[in-house]
């Protein structure tokens, strides 16, 4: 590993979980963690355990729901899926992040000697 992994900004994990569930459908905790790792190209530093804190938070806000089910390899696991409200939240949060990242891109693209490597 050539460089240090990214630390997750506050609130980004929740958004990632929501997006993952929105695009992949119901998943168990491990599945979600793996998807996020894969999608980030192993760029983020993810303690998989923190996923569970995120999941309980999202569940309490009513953005995701959970149900016990059976995994592909026949293990009993808790499957999470995104709720209607969760989708709404996702749309709003995603729009916010996109705007923010556009703004950041623009700001950072300003020419300036100091930034020059």
């Amino acid at each position: 590993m050539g460089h240090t992994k990214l630390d997750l900004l506050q609130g980004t994990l929740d958004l990632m979980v929501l997006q993952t569930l929105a695009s992949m459908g119901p998943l168990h905790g491990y599945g979600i963690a793996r998807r996020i790792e894969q999608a980030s190209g192993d760029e983020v530093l993810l303690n998989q355990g923190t996923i569970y804190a995120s999941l309980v938070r999202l569940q309490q806000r009513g953005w995701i729901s959970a149900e016990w089910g059976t995994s592909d390899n026949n293990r009993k696991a808790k499957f999470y899926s995104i709720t209607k409200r969760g989708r709404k939240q996702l749309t709003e949060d995603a729009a916010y992040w996109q705007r923010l990242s556009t703004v950041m891109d623009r700001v950072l693209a300003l020419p300036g000697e100091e930034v020059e490597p």
Partner: protein
Amino acid sequence: MIDRLRQSLQRFLPLFRRARLDQELDAEVAVHLDLAIDENRENGMSAEEARRQALIQLGGIAQTKENYRDHRGIAWLETLFRDLRFALRMLRKSSGFCVVAILALALGIGFSSIVFSIFYNGVLNPFPYRDANRLRAISVMDDRDATKQFRPVFHLDEIVAFRKQNHTFEDIVGVSSWDVLYARNGVTGLVHGCVMTPNATEFYGVPPMLGRSLMERDAQPGADPVVLLGYEYWKKEFQQDKSVVGKTMIIDNQARTVIGVMPPRFYLFGADFYALISGDRTEPSMADAMANNAPYFFFPNGILKKGISRDTANADLFAIAQRLVPLHKDDYPEKFHINTRGFSDAIVGDFKQTMFFLIGVVALLLLISSSNVASLLLTHHSARAKLIALRSALGASRGCLIRQLLLLVFAGLVIRSFIAITNFDPGISTKNMFVADIHFPGHQYDSAESKRAYFEQALARISAIPGVVSAATALGWPIEGGPRTEDVTIPGKPHDKHWTTSFEACSEGYFQTLGSRLLRGRLISSSDVAPARRIAVVNQTLSDQYFPNQNPIGQQIKFNVLDQIPGTPHDAYFEIVGIVSDFRNVGLQQSVQPEAFVPYTFSGFGDRNILVRTAANPNLFVNTFRQVLADVDPNPILSHPDTLEGLLHTHEYVKPKFRLISFGTCAGIGPGLALIGLFGVMSYSVALQTQELGVRMALGAQRSDILTLVLRKGVLLVGNGLFLGLLVAFLSVRILQSQLWGVSAFDPGAFVLAPLALLAAGLLACYLPARRATRVDPLVALRYE
């Protein structure tokens, strides 16, 4: 909504389900590790390495759980605090709004709980009796006129037959009122008792509040005479003295032991006391009535067996009644059937309708107040979707206006109806009229001659009292009406339907005392009274109905009911000598019925009333009257002294007054609520438009333009609501018909005034925000984002 509920539940559940949630997490983490190990092994790791890597990826089992628990707890506390903080902030920030919202809800909820408790006690659970929902009143119906009950009362032997021979009732009881003399501390008065068949205690199933119940053995021959007191009487007469149990009361000239007191809700017959009677042991003062086979005496109540239909019960009792006909020929119409109806229908009657209606109105009120709060909330803090909020608030306030108008129209109608009743001209003057009952104990005054001797003196002396205009005696009450006969016989006028008539037995001063006018012929004179001449004066209605386009004077009329009453002239024809102007005779609300007046000396039966027209408040004369009457003879008892207005108040105004107060309160609270709602919405609407208004003013719009602009919006909203409200009111007002009297359901007064009142209120609610809008500083408004 459901989602919200579930979410809040979920928020609290962790408190109670901590252990289970921990278990679930354990299982989840275990699965996580297993899945990770599986994947690692597939990637070629050794079992041990796979497990090590899995744990690293997870970040440690203990940490994961710790982290999870922290978040679970924090998330919960966090949201709770957030909600609390938000609520408090809102409260502080907009205390006015909160006061209004809370007030609106409090009014709605408070009023509806009051009405519901009345509804519950008056309609849903009006009686404390056992199996009250299966309690039935039994009556004989005449097939010729199915709408009227022929009689709701029966002979004791009929009730015994019903009780023993029926197959559809668990039990049947007979009850009757029993007004008797009660001597206490040397003063004799009339008390209102209730006698019941011996099975009554078990039948009604209400235990006494004090002492013991009446038992079957109390009705056995030779048993000690006992009496059970009613709560109200115990409260009034004995000041709730508990030591009254065991004491003796001289009732009906017989010493009776008080065995107990019934609870307040046991109000059968509204009696002062209760006693038992059985076929073989009759009370002394009733012995006559029983021996004479008094026509109608006991009200039967039955408890229907479970699952028995009304028709089955009716048929069952009819079979028994048919066998009773030969024993009581005069007491059954030629063709009849037996009807059983719910006790509450028989007693509560049309009060039920009023209550159902009131419940509806209150629901409306509650709806208004909650939709108000909803629209206030919407307009208050929904910054995200301002327009949506405004639109739904406008919609809500239109709905609110519609309901409000409905309520106002209803209230207007009820108020008009009450005014109509209280201002109604009953045909005679009700002012300064003293009325009282004269009770004749014993047999001293049983003959017509003795009654005449008594009243001649009594009326002369009362008339001589300064301040008395005139005095008379009668059988019934003016306006409330006298005895009725279900049919009359007029020679040469056979008729299929019943020709009912009230008949009044009165002294010669009756018409003068009441103030009814002679239209034709002559009035009853003292020379008719003394020899008890068989003459009658009839009212206009009787003349119009039974002698259309004819002169009734000189015709004969027979009141058939007299044939059934012992001690009255049987087969007696009265010659009609005069016609008097109509006045109400079956209560204020019903139209005038045919009525005939005959000399009171036609028979000596029963107690009589006296009516005295005074020049001043009749209540001032009560003691004088009592004294004067005692001078004539101390034995007859003056009871229930009252004024005619007081009597009407008790009998005629109570229901309309109840309606007035209840509907009036609803209607009074309503406009306040509507104003609140409208004001909130309009204020918000103006606030939203601040920027636009600023631009307009910057471009040169005058204040008056702005005012018009804002007002137009409000007026449009109000007009819209009013129009729809009127439409709904027109369609639904018919259901109110039964609650009204003397005004049309489409009374123009109510239909014009109510919308006008609401329009005025609406305009006010719009005007204030509109005026504020004109004060907008264009600069501020433009800067406003």
